[in-house]
């Protein structure tokens, strides 16, 4: 047996042994996800057991180095682990902005001490992170952010406001863009800093959305002390890190994994005619058109990964993936609502799982706003790929 085959059979055996049965059922939404952190209440003992067991092997972050709490796996091994988890329909043990946003940035730009301090806690789900980027007057024009950090020698005093901070009210720490210099261009003078959300002067206020849920907050900073040892990268050069992280975020948003095919949801709801076709012929046409786009997009993600592996530069291509993936997801949810007709518009009650279809549908409207709007992605494609003048 080759090393990889051995790895596969050992991994399969370990997962069979260690993944609790209830962690092999599909998640019904964000509420079923394990977010970790100091304030997190596990939904079940199984959820905690599954996290702890996976974290003990570093498999919440399979490719991170072991000294930072990772599994130290090669890309091929990580692929096998993912495939074996899919095989038994294992849930992701930990959903975390620390893993897919801050982690890659710290690995690239952080000091050894910063990595040692923060990465293992992310890997074990002990600290939950939020992202302090957007401000009331810095949305699509993110670089015009104004949250001010005043130099006090060994620390800064931070004042200002962030908005659309995902789960800020439940997060333990924040990675935050602050302005340390306001001379020069707007991209200069931004610094990327980390601090505890329990620091004096930090407060949060959830924003109720059209879905009725409140995944985002307003976050206020009133004379918050931030140690200079918590600066990532160079002072005033945080925009580079911000961009790097956004690229990761965009790829992440566009690659949420394969959801249940739309046609299967429709068949469950509507059944099929004698000829095996969906009874609503116009809906069937719309679903087919969507699934042709969706399948082509999945192959595009595959191609992008293969090109990156072969040494190609992803660069602005991630903007295309973000644009296309989020627009597709919005369309998918429009079709899910249409498939379910009036049932899909229920807002409360057991029958509709508290209006899950309608609320999920409304949530997707933010897909093409967060992480850079669709229009910003199209701007980036124009400028950086098509080389059109600004």
């Amino acid at each position, binding site marked *: 047996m080759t090393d990889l085959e051995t790895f596969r059979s050992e991994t399969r055996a370990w997962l069979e042994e260690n993944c609790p049965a209830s962690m092999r059922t599909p998640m019904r939404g964000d509420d079923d996800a394990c977010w970790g952190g100091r304030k997190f209440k596990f939904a079940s003992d199984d959820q905690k057991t599954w996290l702890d067991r996976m974290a003990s092997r570093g498999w919440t972050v399979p490719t991170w180095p072991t000294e930072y709490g990772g599994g130290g796996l090669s890309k091929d091994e990580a692929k096998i682990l993912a495939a074996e988890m899919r095989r038994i329909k294992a849930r992701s043990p930990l959903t975390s902005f620390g893993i897919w946003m801050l982690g890659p940035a710290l690995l690239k730009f952080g000091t050894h001490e910063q990595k040692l301090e923060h990465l293992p806690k992310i890997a074990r789900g002990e600290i939950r992170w939020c992202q302090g980027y957007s401000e009331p007057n810095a949305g699509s024009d993110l670089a015009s952010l104004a949250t001010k950090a005043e130099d006090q020698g060994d620390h800064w005093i931070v004042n200002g406001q962030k908005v659309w901070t995902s789960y800020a009210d439940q997060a333990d720490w924040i990675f935050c863009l602050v302005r340390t210099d306001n001379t020069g261009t707007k991209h200069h003078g931004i610094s990327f800093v980390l601090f505890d959300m329990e620091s004096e002067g930090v407060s949060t206020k959830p924003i109720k959305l059209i879905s009725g849920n409140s995944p985002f907050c307003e976050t206020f900073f009133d004379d918050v002390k931030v140690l200079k040892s918590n600066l990532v990268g160079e002072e005033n050069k945080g925009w580079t890190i911000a961009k790097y992280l956004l690229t990761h975020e965009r790829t992440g948003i566009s690659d949420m994994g394969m959801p249940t095919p739309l046609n299967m949801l429709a*068949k469950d709801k509507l059944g099929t005619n004698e000829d095996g076709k969906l009874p609503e012929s116009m809906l069937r046409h719309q679903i087919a058109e969507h699934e042709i786009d969706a399948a082509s997009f999945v192959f595009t993600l595959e*191609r992008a990964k293969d090109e990156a592996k072969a040494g190609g530069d992803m660069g602005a291509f991630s903007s295309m993936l973000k644009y296309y993936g989020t627009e597709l997801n919005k369309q998918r949810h429009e079709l899910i609502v249409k498939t379910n007709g009036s049932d899909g518009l229920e807002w409360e009650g057991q029958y509709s799982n508290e209006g899950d279809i309608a609320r999920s549908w409304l949530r997707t409207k933010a897909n093409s706003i967060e992480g850079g709007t669709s229009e910003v992605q*199209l701007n980036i494609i124009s400028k950086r790929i*098509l080389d059109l003048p600004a």
Partner: protein
Amino acid sequence: MALILNEEQQLLKESADGFFAEKAPISQLRELRDSRSETGFSEALWNEMAEMGFAGLLVDEDNGGTDFGVMGAGIVAEAMGRTLSASPYLASGVISASVIKAAASDAQKANLLPAIASGEKIIALAIDENAHHRPESTALKATADGDGYVLSGMKTFVCDGHVADAYLVLARTSGAPGDTSGLSVFLVEKGAGGLIVDRTVMTDSRNWAKLTFEGVRVGADALVGPLDGAFDAIEPALDRARIIVAAELLGIAQECLDRTVEYLRERKQFGTVIGSFQGLQHRASHLFSEIEVTRSAVLKAMQAADTGGDVRWFASLAKAKACKTAELATNEAIQMHGGIGMTDEFDIGFFIKRARILQTFLGDFNYHADRFAACSSY
């Protein structure tokens, strides 16, 4: 398998791109059209293509081909989409070679494939009888007669029909139009008694024809593939051809985008280049995205066809997606070029004319979206 071109395929792409840009740019098609060329393609070009090995990309080496598979044939088709190079490549080198490989006897293969690969013989598939592609609705009758068959009926939208040396004709040997069983393929030589060939001038200025069969007699050895079983026998071959047509559509879409973006960078209005206007930038960027996504579908389908994937599903996916994107690209190209895009003097109009033909050929978007859904059991 990685979803990128390997070194050999990359070389083929470079050589094809260079070859067609130099030997058969769009001006050649314009000349053929304006001179009302008898052949509708340059025989010198076709000979050179055969020398390059392009006519035998799908033919195995034992039969004189280069055996590059659907991937290779698609790469070359994409290059031809960019220059709209006219030749019997699609009819003979792609569709007929594919059908013969899938259905013919070894003796027939040995007889026909080397002639296709060398470009000596042009063979065209006669399949459609109505304005909409639907192979099972074939009504053209082949009746057993003595030790052969007699063919009666008509065919339309025959690719390179008026320059072909022989035809592969889908005919009904039993059952009724609508049945997938009861179909058979016959090889009919040009000049056969009772065969009338009418060239049809189509929007793309290429070679299409209607064929009328007035009791055309063929021998028993003209039967290609199983009697009554042609539908299943040639379907995988048609799917390979559909994927390659999708690749040509991809080339058209890409060329439309490239020409349009170049125009946006140069054309000035309101004192500045129009490419600085966000309204146009976003349209171009959206088109770019659709083309990239289409490229992945086509590439994946070409790979699947060569490695034994579910070729039906992939062919319908690739053809449907390519149809939609080519329609968008050609429409957007004209709109973003403005008035000049409407003039015959400017080349961009040639692309929309070829694209609509290829979109319709071997099943349009609706045909393949329906088939895609049926393949996925809904």
